């Protein structure tokens, strides 16, 4: 399916009084847009307006979001008519040689299962000592002869990037090349042409890497997929791109945003420093509280389906607001409060249903190690600029900060 056959026009254009999404955040940059909070209380299943004038249903309650993500009547396949997109760039990304996150079972399961073995809990645990060495080396390099640095390029980004490169078999020395393209792919403001060019560059880069691995015996994910000889070069490249982009942007942003959050909440920071055994639960709570996949997860109804007391007609798009669901007081009492001691394991920061994040065991391990190494290694960690000067990633698919100047 090409872009040209994708139905651009929908039967009607939205009344302008509908909420436009993604909505703007309010005063606190850690909190979801206040409009989502209002919707969750007053109209948890409501129609909203998208950038192109079309409409979709926005779901904001934890129970409803979980239910739809687990319901096979809602498709993740962006080539289905009515699938909602948040920008023209998003449309390109979701429909151009899509990876399995934009497919339904059984095809989704067939492809995902080629990778599930690489991300099992025990494998992530086995990687923990190696991840710790990488984190400690980055910290040592960052603090050598200096008392301040930007945490994003010096620690938060290279840590998961080094790890996913190691697992995939991508040379980390190319990181400037793929990080710049990855950044464009995840930008909500990049033009159609920029997204297409970045997508093509990354696709070519990974296809070359796949070709180079043919006939070799590389002990990494791409090397193994080549040897299995089930997928085409383009299919392996598409899978590699998904893992490369998802594998470092998400953990990188969670790391820096978590540190910033804790610096702004000295009580929670002190508790975590005093009770380091809380780290696993604290990471779940930070995942819930921050929910960096902040613009919503898209699905389209394949048949009429009742959700939260309303019927969503077949062919209508649905946006599942993970950030709102994760602040729902019904699921997390006093949900707007960060509490590193609470049980937040049922958060939907990794999604829910069969598409729930494949790399979550790795992400958890990386975050637990990253936060522990930073809090233990830098007891006097503090912001090096006023909080108001921190540039938040309002413009990106994955929320976080563009830079985080800190001192110690």
């Amino acid at each position, binding site marked *: 399916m090409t872009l040209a056959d994708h139905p651009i026009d929908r039967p009607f254009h939205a009344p302008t009084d509908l909420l436009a999404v993604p909505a703007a955040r309010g005063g606190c940059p850690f909190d979801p847009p206040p409009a989502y909070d209002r919707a969750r209380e007053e109209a948890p299943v409501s129609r909203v307006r998208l950038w192109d004038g079309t409409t979709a249903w926005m779901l904001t309650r*934890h*129970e409803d979001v979980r239910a739809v*993500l*687990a319901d096979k009547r809602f498709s993740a396949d962006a080539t289905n008519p009515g699938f909602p997109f948040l920008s023209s760039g998003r449309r390109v990304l979701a429909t151009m040689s899509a990876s399995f996150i934009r497919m339904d079972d059984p095809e989704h*399961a067939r492809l*995902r*299962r080629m*990778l*599930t*073995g*690489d*991300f*099992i*809990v*025990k*494998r992530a645990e086995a990687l923990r000592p190696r991840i710790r060495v990488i984190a400690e080396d980055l910290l040592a390099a960052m603090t050598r002869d200096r008392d301040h640095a930007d945490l994003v390029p010096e620690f938060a980004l290279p840590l998961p990037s080094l790890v996913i490169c190691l697992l995939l078999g991508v040379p980390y020395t190319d990181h400037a090349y793929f990080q710049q393209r990855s950044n464009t792919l995840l930008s909500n403001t990049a033009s159609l042409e920029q997204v297409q060019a970045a997508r093509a560059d990354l696709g070519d880069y990974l296809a070359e890497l796949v070709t180079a691995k043919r006939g070799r015996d590389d002990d990494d994910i791409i090397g193994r997929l080549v040897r299995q000889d089930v997928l085409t070069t383009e299919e392996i490249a598409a899978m590699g791109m998904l893992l490369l982009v998802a594998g470092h942007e998400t953990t990188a942003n969670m790391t820096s945003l978590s540190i910033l959050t804790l610096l702004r909440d000295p009580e929670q920071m002190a508790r975590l420093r005093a009770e380091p055994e809380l780290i696993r639960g604290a990471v779940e709570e930070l995942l819930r509280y921050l929910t960096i996949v902040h613009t919503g997860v898209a699905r389209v109804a394949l048949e009429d389906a009742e959700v939260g007391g309303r019927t969503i007609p077949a062919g209508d798009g649905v946006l599942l607001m993970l950030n709102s669901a994760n602040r729902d007081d*019904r*699921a997390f009492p006093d949900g707007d409060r960060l509490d590193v001691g609470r*049980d937040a*394991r*049922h958060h939907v920061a*990794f*999604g*829910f*249903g*069969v*598409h*729930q*994040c*494949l790399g*979550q*065991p790795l992400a*958890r391990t990386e975050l637990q190690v990253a936060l522990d190494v930073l809090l233990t290694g830098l007891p006097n960690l503090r912001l090096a600029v006023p909080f108001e000067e921190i540039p938040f990633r309002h413009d990106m698919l994955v929320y976080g900060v563009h830079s985080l100047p800190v001192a110690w």
Partner: protein
Amino acid sequence: MSAVAVENIQENTPENSQETSQETEKPAEDAVFRVRADRAKCCGAGMCTLNAPEVFDQDPDEGLVVLLDPDPLPEQHRAVRDAVRLCPSGALSVEQG
């Protein structure tokens, strides 16, 4: 089967399943507490292994659920219920009676 309640805790609201009231209302020594794991539904997210490692594992090749103990001891019941409610693909269930 008719006398046995099939509990798919995933359908419960988080508040219900988070409470410990289930533990107190239903005595730990249930006559039946049988765990089921459906590998056809499993998506390999690993929530079961993470939350009830004594009862669930993942096979290293496909990463799919491996049921280590279909009749876990009462002290494992809470962790199993957590695993069932946290499983994203609805692959786990418990028969209780």
